[in-house]
Structures are given as structure tokens and as C-alpha cells.
């Protein structure tokens, strides 16, 4: 018996003869939180609707506990094993309390039990003082809390969350994210969470799936997806800003020297000389020091001399574009920029650990397309 509670097999969705979703296999494990990330229009929400039995795919099947779902008149019992929260709270025009109780009322849960569960989840999401308020008088954050409480009160086998925080301002989002994180950990309810925010996926996801153009490009632990993306498109989406094509020039003792045309980068790995590769280096891994390069590159560290070409503040950090034969990006703190007196034209040494480089074999990329 597999531990997959919900699976999609060879699922295809087409609108106007255009394939917008094509999933060979996706298995959601019992009690895990699976985060699906990807740019807008990648098919994330469509996949969520199909898995939640709200939209019938053109082809393929959905399995619940290993058994294929029959898309017919008796779909309702299967659909009632799910609960969904969407980007918009979409509450009924009544009180908060009645909204939270709605899923239970639809399932004819007896009054006592329904009241107990409603009260519990209203309290759990911190909206007890609002229980008797009309839903339409709520703020965005309060409404989304109500929507979450409504979904949890159902105590579903699978919880589906479709960008539930996208419409909220950052402080509200942060509060709600923290509460949700705690509730997910405590209840261990199987959850599929769709977002275009990489940080949300990193915080909530036991596993992360990256969707690109209707396909599941990679599905793995957050460490692997963010550290060793399966292809350049995934790498770009998960925030690997430095993608450098090159070719293996030397290989010895598990260490490769990759020639990028302008730089020679040391990377751990086992590949034949001459193989084309793509180097992925996260900007957080790149360190800057002032002045010209003193030490020669060694097996652990790559050093390159360069000049600062651009400084772009991003929140409390600064993206520094360094021209060192080819442009590379470093993400440093505002404090470092000040301490190192970095400005456009500054001479710097750019370095990153050999182990911080992730290699993608470019032939594999070609084959997977």
C-alpha cells in the first residue's frame, strides 16, 4: 500500500484545443505539505482544481487512496473529502460564525458537533471577537482567516490552498502565514499549497513542485529544488540569478574545471571533459571583497577580479552586479555595501565556494524538452 493519498496520472487539461496542463504523475503523500510554485499561467491553479475534483481533465485520472475517481453523479462524497481556500475569501453574505459552519452544514454534521468544531476553529484563527460580525464588514486578513477556519472546520482529508495570501499586505500575510504554519504542523493534514512566492513555499513545503508551462518541471525537497534545480528555467524561477553556460575543461579527483569562455570555475563533480554544462550560483552565495584579487583559485574557492557595474537595493539587501569577464550577481547586506564602500566602478574580488555551484548538464536539458 502506497502512502500516497492523492495522485494525478497522465492528466491533461485543454482549453480551446490548447494544452494548458500535462502532468505525467504526481503523488501527494499522506500528511505532507506539498507546495506548488511557478509563474502566473503555469497551470498551478488548474492542477489544484483538477485534483480537488472541481474540474474534469480532458484525459487522465485522479486517484484517492489508490482508487481512481469516477467522474459521474457520485462524485460528491469524494469531493467532500477536500476543503479549499482561494486567493479571494469568497464568504457567504452572513455572519463569520455561519460562514465557518457552512461546510459542516452542507455535510449535515449534527448541531452540537458543528457548534463545537466551529467554535474551536474560530478561536484557533483568532477571530472569536468577530464571530457575530457580518462577513462583508471584514478586512481582507480577517476574511481570509474566516475562509481558513471554514476549511479547517471541515477537517478534510486533503486541504487545497490556492495562493491564500497573495491579496494581503505584508504584515497581515506574515501573521497569517505563521498561524497557518503552526496549524499545519499540529493537524498534519495533507495539504497542497499553490503559490508564486518562493519564500512561502520554502516555509510551508515539505516538498516543493515547480510548475512551468503546464508541466511539473521538478518535485523534490526544498533543499534540492532551491539548491540543485533540474534545469535553467527552474533555476531562474527559484532565484538562481547566475546561470553561466560552459564546458568541462579538466576533470580530476571529483573536481571539475569548467571553462565559460571568460572564467575558469572549479566545481565538484564527475563528468567527461568536453561536456557542455550550465553553472548555477545563487547570489546569496557570492561574497565580495574590496580591492584586487590576491590569492589564486583553489579547490575550495573560486576568486575572480571584477568591477561593480550596478547597485540595486532590494529591501535590506543590495543586488550588486559585478563585471568580471561576464556579469555575475551578488546579494549583500546594505551594511556590507557601506563597510566595503562599494560603488559603481569599485574594484572588487568576487568569490564563491566550489560547493556552492550547482551543475546542470546541458544535454539533459536538451533531452527533457
Amino acid at each position: 500500500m502506497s502512502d500516497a493519498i492523492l495522485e494525478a496520472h497522465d492528466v491533461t487539461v485543454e482549453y480551446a484545443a490548447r494544452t494548458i496542463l500535462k502532468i505525467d504523475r504526481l503523488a501527494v503523500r499522506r500528511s505532507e505539505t506539498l507546495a506548488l510554485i511557478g509563474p502566473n499561467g503555469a497551470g498551478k491553479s488548474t492542477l489544484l482544481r483538477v485534483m480537488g475534483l472541481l474540474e474534469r481533465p480532458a484525459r487522465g485520472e485522479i486517484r484517492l487512496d489508490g482508487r481512481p475517481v469516477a467522474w459521474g453523479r457520485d462524485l460528491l462524497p469524494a469531493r467532500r473529502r477536500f476543503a479549499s481556500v482561494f486567493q479571494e475569501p469568497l464568504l457567504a453574505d452572513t455572519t463569520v460564525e455561519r460562514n465557518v459552519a457552512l461546510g459542516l452544514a452542507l455535510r449535515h454534521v449534527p448541531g452540537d458537533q458543528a457548534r463545537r468544531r466551529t467554535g474551536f476553529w474560530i478561536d484557533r484563527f483568532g477571530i472569536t471577537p468577530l464571530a457575530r460580525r457580518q462577513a462583508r464588514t471584514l478586512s481582507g486578513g480577517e476574511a481570509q482567516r474566516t475562509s481558513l477556519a471554514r476549511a479547517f472546520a471541515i477537517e478534510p482529508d486533503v486541504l487545497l490552498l490556492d495562493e491564500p495570501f497573495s491579496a494581503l499586505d505584508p504584515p497581515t500575510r506574515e501573521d497569517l502565514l505563521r498561524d497557518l504554519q503552526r496549524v499545519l504542523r499540529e493537524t498534519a493534514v495533507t495539504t497542497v499549497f499553490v503559490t508564486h512566492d518562493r519564500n512561502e513555499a520554502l516555509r510551508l513545503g515539505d516538498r516543493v513542485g515547480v510548475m512551468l508551462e503546464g508541466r511539473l518541471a521538478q518535485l523534490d525537497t526544498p533543499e534540492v529544488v532551491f539548491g540543485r534545480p533540474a534545469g535553467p528555467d527552474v533555476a531562474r524561477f527559484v532565484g538562481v540569478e547566475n546561470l553561466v553556460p560552459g564546458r568541462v575543461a579538466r576533470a580530476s579527483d571529483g573536481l571539475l574545471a569548467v571553462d565559460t569562455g571568460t572564467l575558469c570555475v572549479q566545481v565538484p563533480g564527475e563528468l567527461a571533459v568536453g561536456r557542455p554544462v550550465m553553472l548555477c550560483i545563487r547570489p546569496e552565495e557570492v561574497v565580495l571583497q574590496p580591492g584586487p584579487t590576491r590569492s589564486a583559485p583553489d579547490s575550495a574557492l573560486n576568486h575572480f577580479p571584477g568591477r561593480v557595474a550596478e547597485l540595486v537595493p532590494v529591501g535590506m539587501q543590495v543586488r550588486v552586479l559585478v563585471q568580471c569577464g561576464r556579469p555575475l550577481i551578488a546579494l549583500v547586506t546594505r551594511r556590507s555595501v557601506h563597510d566595503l564602500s562599494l560603488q559603481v566602478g569599485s574594484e572588487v574580488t568576487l568569490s564563491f565556494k566550489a560547493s556552492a555551484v550547482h551543475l546542470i548538464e546541458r544535454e539533459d536539458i536538451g533531452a527533457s524538452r
Partner: protein
Amino acid sequence: MELIWDGVRRAVGLLIGLDREVLAITWLSLQVAATSTGLALIVGIPLGTLIALARFPARALVISLVNTGMGLPPVVVGLFVSIFLWRSGPLGFLELLYTPTAIVIAQLVIAAPIVTGLTLAAVQQIPPQFRLQMEAIGASRAQLLWLLVREARLPMLAAVMAGFGGVVSEIGASMMVGGNIRGQTRVLTTATVMETGKGNFDVAIALSLILLAVTFLVNYLLTVLQQRRRPS
């Protein structure tokens, strides 16, 4: 001017004096209009909701027909209902012509498209995402219809007002299928026409004032109901 004042004074007199005939006419008007509006709601709300939600080939045509029906001239309705109920007509054996039931039938034909059209509009303005969300928390088909109707209940009060307002004030159909028979099918509008024709302007004015007051009261009650629950 004096004519109007006389009319008002006379009307107050008729009301205060609880003139039996005027009361009976008013009561019948209310009864007939309320019954036909009630029946129109029973027909129009499910029908409007279904048309709003269903996707079928001739949908645009059906919606156009409903919208046209909202402006159906009462005389045309009166004519066709008369033909149907005529002694030798298809439904003549029911012997309903010139009874209050006949008026109810004609008014139902007038009010049903109004209620259907306004329900359709009310349900259509609920975002499609709401429907998906209700299904996503476990609504069956029947529950979904009920939830959507409940969600549209405030704009739908407009359907009740428009339906009732349409039938309580129409004259053509009531006259043709009811016949303005004293003590049987005489309603406020038909009585007003008759009294005006006879030159009894004072009585006619009294009757119109009563009609206005009745319409106003019903609409006022419904409006209070509707506005009470509007966001501030």
C-alpha cells in the same frame, strides 16, 4: 383644483367610513396581486437561477425572450388568456373566465418574466469564483442553487417589488379576463377606469389614492427589508 380636493376628502371619507365596497375592492386587488406575485416567485426564482447557471445552445435567445417578456403589454396578455379561457377555447371547460382566478393567471403571465429576468440578473452578478468555492467546500447541486439564491436575496427583493408593482397597477388584463364584475372581479384599477368613465372623478381619485398608498406601503416594507442589510 377643487376637483382633486373633493376627491381627497371623499377618499378619506370612504376609508374612515370603512365603505364596504371600497374595502372589498382593495382587499381583492391585494389578494390577486399577492397571489400572482407569489406564484411568479415560485416559477421565476428557480427558472432565473437555472438560466443564469446553465450553459445551453440557445441561451442568448432564451435570455432575450425573458427580457422581452419583462415588458409584455398587459392587454396582449389579457387577449391571449381570454382566448384560452373562452368558453370554446382550449381551457374553456375550466370555466374560469371572469373569475379572480383568471386575473391571477393573467397577472402570473405578466409577473413571471419580470421575476425570472431580475433573478437571472441577480444570480449572474455573483462572481463565478463564489460558485466554485461553494462546490469546493462540499455543496451538492441542490445546495449550490440554494446558496446562490440566498446570496442574491437582496437584489432579488427588487424582483418582488417589480413583480408586485407590475401586476397591482395593470389594468388591461384584469379588465379583459376579469370583466370588472361588481362584488366578484372588480379591482382598484378596473374600478378607477369605470368611475372615470362615468364622470365620478371624486370616487376615481379616491380609488387611485388608495392604489398609490397600497403600492407605496408594500414597496416601503420591502425596501426597509432590503436596505437594513446593506453594508454601511
